[in-house]
């Protein structure tokens, strides 16, 4: 006998079922000079984007240490979005080039140990790209809604 359910399960751990009113929490780490200004512009130009994102402002995308991402995923987040200036536009000249390398390796490694690759996403959003920011956040939220809740190595489990 097979019961067809519409319940959303965590993609990494199918035994974990999302509660019916589940909404993902996404940590957005934005660079001060472009993406944060971009998100500001989104707000001032009255563009809607999902409220699931919690924004943290950092001076530059290369300020994002890899363990910021790991810590986010281990505490509240179901997904992380890191956003910085377009290549060539970095306020500190080359910060985002360094960041780009770290992001790729972090994303691949976390994917390797069993996180879905869409849990960590990156974008380049400039200060003038308000609509793009709204689009990026909508897409990330949509992606993570499909993946279900993240229940891997959460700190608050206090296991063992």
């Amino acid at each position, binding site marked *: 006998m097979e019961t067809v359910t519409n319940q959303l399960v965590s993609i990494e751990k199918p035994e974990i079922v999302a509660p019916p009113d589940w909404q993902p929490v996404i940590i957005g780490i934005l660079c001060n000079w472009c993406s944060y200004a971009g998100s500001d512009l989104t707000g001032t130009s009255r563009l809607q984007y999902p409220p699931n994102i919690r924004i943290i402002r950092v001076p530059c995308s290369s300020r994002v240490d890899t363990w910021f991402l790991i810590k986010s995923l281990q505490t509240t987040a179901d997904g992380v979005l890191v956003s910085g200036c377009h*290549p060539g536009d970095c306020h500190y000249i080359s910060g985002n080039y360094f960041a*780009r390398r770290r992001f*790729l*390796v972090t994303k691949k490694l*976390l994917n390797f140990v*069993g996180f879905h690759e869409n849990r960590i996403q990156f974008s*380049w959003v400039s200060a003038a790209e308000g609509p793009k920011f709204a689009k990026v956040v909508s897409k990330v939220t949509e992606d993570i809604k499909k993946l279900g809740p993240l229940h891997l190595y959460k700190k608050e489990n*206090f296991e063992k």
Partner: protein
Amino acid sequence: MDYTKQIQEIATRLFAEDKIDVFVGYRLTGFDDNQVPALIRESKDVPLLVFNQKSVFNLSNYLKNDHTRNKRVGLVVKGCDSRSLNLLLTESQVKREKLYVVGIACEGVVDDAGQKMQNCLECMVPAAVVYDELLGEANMERRFIINADIQDMAAKELVQRREYFEEVFENCIRCNACRHSCPLCYCAKCCIDQETATLYNGANTTSSAFHALMTWSLHLAGRCVDCRNCEKACPSHLPLHLFHKWNERVIYENFQEHLAGVHEGDRGAFYKYSMQDPDDFIM
């Protein structure tokens, strides 16, 4: 591969010419053919030195040791050891003029069971890249063979990988032996050490092990030279090389065939960039 005689000759000469204060090499444990690193301070102890295919431990670890700091050191390095030495030099942890490096063109070392170590089978740089003197043939080049177990692992489904690594993190006992035995982990305050940890205070839980191993392997990404000191030290025998080799592979494929510490003055992959770095994963 037995350079015992040559190394003893070199060490004797260096002590006689008063070029070094301490010579770091290997000696036998005294009962079997396993070897212990030896820090030789006087020429009378030089006959203890040996070097053969059982000389496994990466000696550049001892450059962060109390006994070698601010001293003139003679050091034996194999291919992988010399790469980590190269990184230590680039990162200003040791001074080149204080070192006398005996490089070895390594033919691969063996583990306790006598099998050739897996990292030696796929070694790309077997001969030492930094040396004052090289023993053996220098022109040894090998291919970059992608680790078979990495390939198997990457081919698995997401859920299977998660299950496998959950077991890895569960079996970690948070002793931090991996970090202490790594030649490239020289931070006085480490972000995964119990007392100075950033997110976890050292309780041994699966999540703290995940945090520690992930952060640690990402700090070593693009710097790890695959000497497997960490795996030798791990009391739980965890397959720590999976993280490092995976990172090495990602970095090699994406960042212009970067290999840590092969060229002099070459920094870790995260300390430089190129315009050609992949951008397609970024929205």
